[in-house]
Structure formats: C-alpha cells, structure tokens
C-alpha cells in the first residue's frame, strides 16, 4: 500500500517534470519482485550487547538476511542522521561503523549502487567528514552525495497530510529503488526524542516550514509520504540530554543497542521505551498511530529480542 502511494507520487512527479524516469523503473521492479518478498517474520527486532556491525548482522539474520530487502541491481538509499559537526563519541550522528556495515551488506546482497546523504544542520562538508560517515561510506564502496543546496530537491505533494501537504524532497528519494532509514536514538529539546520519523526531516529542503506549522503534526504527516523499506535505529551511543546536538561527551551513555523494523511508528515506540520515555508522551508517535501510518502498540506485535 505504502509503496503504491509512493509510486504514484513518484510517477506523478516524473510525468510533471518529464525528467525523472526512476519511478517507472521502480514500478517494473516492484511487479517483478512483489511475489518474491515473503512475509516479514518479525515486526521488530531488538538487539543489545554487541558492536554496531555485529548487532546489525545478527538482527538481519533474524529477519532472513538483507537479501530479503535488497534485490539485485537495485539502487539503495541509506539515510543516516548526519546533522551535526561532531564526532561519533558525541552520538549526534548515526554511528559510522553501522553505516559502513549496512553499505557493505547492501553490495553483498547485489545492490548496483548504494547512495548516502543527509540535509545537515551544521555545515555539510564538516558534518560529513567529522561524523566519520563520509569515510565509512567510501570504505564500503558507497557514494556519499551532497544535499546542501535547493537544487537537489524537487517538489512533491504529501498524500493524506494535515499540515505538511507539500515538500521538496531530495532527488535520491525519488530515484532510489530501496530506502533504508538509519536514525540514531537521542534526546531532543522540543520533540523529546529524535528517531526514525524525525530523521525524515533530513530528506526535505525546508525544515523551517515544519517548525512553523506544528512540528509533531508535520513529522507524522511526512511519515506517510515515503515509508522506508527498512529502519535501523542506532542506539550504541545514546545522547541522553541536550539533544539533538549535545554539548559534550558527558551527555552520552553507551547502550550498545539496536532496533530494526520496517514500521517507523513501531520502531519509534520501541526506541522511546528503550530511552525511558513513554511513547504516548511523544506526540508525533501518537499522531502517526492515529493516522494509521504504523503500529505503536508493542504488546500486540511480534518482537524478536536478541542479547549478545
């Protein structure tokens, strides 16, 4: 359902501009691969006690391997949080070790190309570099792509949105066959927590619009636009206060945890609990659940828990 909605918007956009044909390719691929993707065994996989790359490998094993998601010759978009000009120990950005492993495994699963970008808050070159993600992506053979100017973003309409009816999204969102969202779990001054749905703010151009028009509602609205095929939440180092940028390493604890789910609402609800906040206290999770974007009632879901 969500993929169809995306396809519609993708094709609509292609028809409008006449420039992007990625949507059409994607449609063909969708029909080719629709029957091969079996039901996902778990709604959520939670892993703790390992290094980021090990936890990711174990988690994907439980889900039947990354090959269940990544098909041969696909263009894969990996979207970490690279918002800030801080190092990995500050937990402001997704752990570079995790990103490196994801990019590697995408290629092992047969991806044609793996692209990585974020619309950063701090200076993009410094954030890409000092987060360690630029090097990680290059080491794994992926492409790190800029998102620093408006030229990379194209207008789309957000179906079913209450407030954020329009947005400009990065062309890689429109072009990629598979979208892997890799947020980091951390505190946030106004939304309490930033996780997978909040991480989607990095694929649009104008974030001020979100802040102006009820941030929580906009986050929930945009969650329906293009649901990631997979969400991998990094909770290895976790910023417990002063988020999202953090002030020093004193804000950070080592949780050595990770969550994986294809449902952003589910993974965000679990992330909130892991952090120690009731998901009902995070308004965008509530709204997203009410708008039926995903499921937040964890007790009704099939969860795989892995301790290493």
């Amino acid at each position: 359902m969500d993929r169809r909605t995306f396809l519609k918007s993708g094709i609509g956009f292609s028809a409008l501009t006449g420039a992007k044909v990625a949507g059409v390719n994607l449609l063909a691929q969708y029909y080719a691969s629709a029957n091969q993707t079996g039901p996902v065994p778990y709604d959520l996989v939670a892993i703790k006690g390992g290094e980021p790359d090990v936890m990711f490998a174990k988690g994907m094993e439980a889900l039947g391997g990354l090959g269940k998601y990544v098909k041969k010759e696909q263009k894969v978009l990996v979207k970490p949080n690279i918002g800030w000009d801080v190092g990995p120990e500050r937990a402001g950005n997704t752990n570079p070790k995790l990103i490196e492993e994801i990019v590697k495994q995408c290629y092992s699963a047969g991806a044609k190309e793996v692209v990585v970008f974020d619309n950063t808050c701090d200076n993009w070159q410094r954030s890409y570099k000092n987060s360690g993600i630029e090097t990680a992506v290059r080491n794994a053979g992926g492409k790190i792509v800029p998102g620093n100017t408006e030229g990379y973003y194209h207008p789309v309409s957000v179906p079913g949105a209450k407030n954020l009816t329009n947005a400009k999204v990065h062309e890689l969102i429109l072009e990629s066959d598979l979208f892997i969202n890799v947020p980091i779990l951390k505190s946030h001054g106004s939304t309490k927590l930033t996780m997978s749905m909040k991480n989607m703010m990095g694929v649009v151009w104008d974030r001020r619009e979100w802040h102006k028009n009820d941030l929580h509602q906009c986050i929930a609205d945009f969650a329906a636009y293009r649901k990631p095929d997979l969400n991998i939440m990094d909770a290895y180092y976790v910023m417990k206060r002063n988020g999202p940028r953090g002030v020093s390493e004193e804000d950070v604890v080592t949780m050595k945890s990770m969550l994986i789910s294809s449902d952003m609402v589910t993974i965000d609800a679990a992330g909130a609990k892991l952090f120690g906040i009731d998901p009902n206290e995070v308004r965008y999770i509530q709204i997203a659940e009410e708008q039926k974007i995903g499921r937040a009632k964890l007790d009704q879901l099939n969860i795989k828990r892995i301790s290493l």
Partner: protein
Amino acid sequence: MVTLRTLRITVASISFILITAIFLDVTNRIPPSWSSAVVSLQFAPALISTIYSLGFAVIGVVFVSILTLLFGRIYCSHLCPLGTLQDIIIWFRKKKYKHRKYPYHPAHYRILYSVTAFSIIAAFSGGAVLLDLLEPFSNYGRILTTLVRPLIILVNNIVALLATSTNRFGIAEIPLNGMNLWNIIIPLSFLFMIIGLTAWRGRLFCNLLCPVGGVLSLLSRISLFKITIQHDACTDCGLCERVCRAQCIDSEKNSVDFAACVGCFDCIGSCPTNGMGYTFKLRSVMTKKEDTDRRTVLMSLSTALLATTGVPNIVDTTKTVSGYSNAKTKPVVPPGGKTQEHFESYCTACHLCVSACPTHVLQPSFLEYGFAGILQPKMDYNVSYCNYDCTICGEICPTGAIQHLQQQEKKSVQLGKVTFVKEDCIVEIKKKDCGACSEHCPTKAVKMVPYEKKLTIPQIENEYCVGCGACEHACPTTPRKAIYVTPNPVHLIAKKREEKRMEPKAATPQEFPF
C-alpha cells in the same frame, strides 16, 4: 640565458596564480595554512598586522623592505597581484594597439606621497579606510571575491548539475550568497578605474594612488641596485622609453626616474646596445631633479602629518565597554576580532575570510560599520551561522584584524548575546512545539523548558552564549526572528557548561523494556 624579464614573468605568474587561487577556491580545498603563507608577503596586510603586534607578519614587512632596499620596487612587478593585473591589461593593450606607447611623464610624487602618508598615518591611528580603498592586495581580493568568485560558483554549479544528472556526485553545488548591488559597486568601480588608468598611462595607479607603491618608492630611492642609462653605450634610439610601463624613462634626457620604476625589466632587454644598466650604486647621484623630488617628499609628508592630526580618530580607543549603546547597531564581529574597534581598525576588507569561510556566514558589509568600515566583513546570520569548531577566518586573516584563536579559545569567545522575543515565537503564537533555535545551539545557552499545555519554550542563559547565530539562523518566524544575536562591542568569554556525566545505569539495558 634567463633574463630578468623572464624571471619577473615567472615569479609574477606564480604569485598571481597562487593568490588568485586562494580567493577563488570555491570548494575550500586549499588548507588555511597554505593560504596564510601565500599572502604573508603582501606588504600592506603584513604592515598592518605588524602595527598591532610584532608577530609572524613582520617577516613580510622586513622581506619586502629589504628586497626594495636592494633592488628597487620589484615588489610591484613580482609580488603585487594588482600590479600583475595591470600588466595583463597592458599586454592586451599592446596586442590591440601596437603603436600606442606610454611616453615619459613626470611622476606625481606630491599626490603619491601625500596619499601614502595620509593613509598609513591614519591606519596607525586606527582609521584604515583610505588604506582599505587604495591598498592593492585588498582591492584585488575584493575584485575576485565579489566579481569573479560568483562566476566560478556558477560554472561549478552548472558542472555539478550535469554531473548529478549522470549520477556523479563528486562536485557539489555551492550556494551563491551575498550578491548585493552595493557590495559590487565599489570593486567594480575600482576595476573600471584600474582598466582606465592602465589603458591610458600604464602603471599610473602605482605612481599616483597606491600607498604600497608610495612606501616602496621612497625606499627605492636608496636602493643598492638601480636601473640607469649607460651614456657611453646609449645610441638615443628611445626603445627603452617605448617599452616602459611606468613612464619613468626620459629618453630625451637619458634619465631613469627609478623611484617610479616598478621593476619590470623590459627596458633592459629592449636595448639593442646593452645601454640599460642594472647596477650596484651605493649612493644615488644627486641631480638637480632628485633634489626637487626630495623636497616634494618632505613637503607631502609634513602636509599629511598636519592633516592627520586635524582629523579626529575614526575609532576612539578610549571608548570600550561604555560605547555599548552606540555599537549596538553595528554588525557582529567575527571570532578573533576582539573588539569592534580592533576589528574595524585593522581590517582592510580584502575578503579573504569571506572567500574561505566554510559556512558563508562571513559576508561583506556595506556601510553597517560606518563609512570607515566600508566593505568590512560581518557575521550574516541570515545566510548562515558560525561553525562552533571552526577557526579558519583567524588562521588566514593577513592583517591580524581577526586574530588566530586556538579551537578551545574560539569556542569560549562570546561574539554577542542572544535576545528572545516571546511574543514573536511560534510556541507562543501558535501554541505548538518548535525548538529550532535550541536544536542548533552548540552550548545550550538556548534551552527548551516546560511551558503551558505540555509545550516547551526557549529559555536563555546568556552566560553560555557564544553569539554564533545558530538560533537566529534556524528560527522560522518571519519577517522578524523571534531570537537574535546582539553584538558585544568587546568580545567576552562565555562560561563553559559543566554538567555531571550521565549515570551509567542508563547504559546497556538488562532486559528490553518492551
């Protein structure tokens, strides 16, 4: 055999290309330390920096002075980028109008030395505006930053667009900021003036208005090596005068006015009988003409001195913290600028920092600093904000207007303080969460605290504020920002936030909480 002319062309090309490259390095690939080394031999910035403190920059002043005392004003044809720019114009003119030369014309020493003395003495007393507007390096820098750099960015962006459409992302688009008519007018007028003067009378600018030319002209009067016409070899053919770009060879009187000579050495190669000597002369032969020159020097110097004493100091050094209310309307000074008066007195608006700033927060001002600070860079929080860990502007500033701060020191400097206007804030107006300001704050001087209906609203703790402008830049309210930085006329030290380490009990959970 390597002639002096080929040597000059080689050195000038290298110097010109390097300086041009650092200003046009739109992708910021050149390390700041290299840029700093390249511009260290630029005389005016080095001199200004030395006025402030006897630091590394003194090397540039001493080197150029010794060079001139030995060989004359060769700086003007070898190291000065504006000199080379004029030489390029001269070259084109020669191509187009083969027969039009620059015949001998007595130099306008009275004007040159007056301008020189006035601008340098004014700079010493803290008002560098004349020096800013006439000094060659800064003018060349402004021409590149304001007029050429946008074109390079445009080309870069077209290439980036083409590359992106073929799925290559090695070249990123660069935002084009600070395109402002007023900022363009001055460099553009200067460029037109230079083209005009050069087309008309060669290196006239250097012998009429250039303060660096003025200083070096004085020094070259006592230089060891001088170009002279060897009367025994001279056949009065006049070829030397025909190639001279400084109009300083009078072939009728067989004399070279060496104080106006820019050291291009074209005349030496042009002489068919080796009649141009570049020889060791311990003391210049006193001719009647030079005697008049000496009088001109003294007269213009004393006029300038008198004039300067009559001019009120543009920057009053006695006014510091008390000047706060006046200074409020001025822009935020970059980190390392120390105080508004320090920055304004030492900055020559060369715009090297503007072209090197990775976030583009440094933008040229127009008259925001007042007429004396025309075109000096300001922190423009509409365009961007200052990166917390970045120290590049201080590293490359050639005049010491922006002092080089170590990273830890820079992170504690408070450029200004933040003001929050609750009535303009989204949280207050719409009763919805926002927090864009606090998100971006690197020190959490702007904190979100509980407000009505489970909302959070910004709270300011100015002792932690560094004045980087991140909150102001991120604030989504229009047309007025609900949060903004007010400059400190004297930069202060922000308190470092000391917080206890997070309790380790929050570390790896024993059991999953779901």
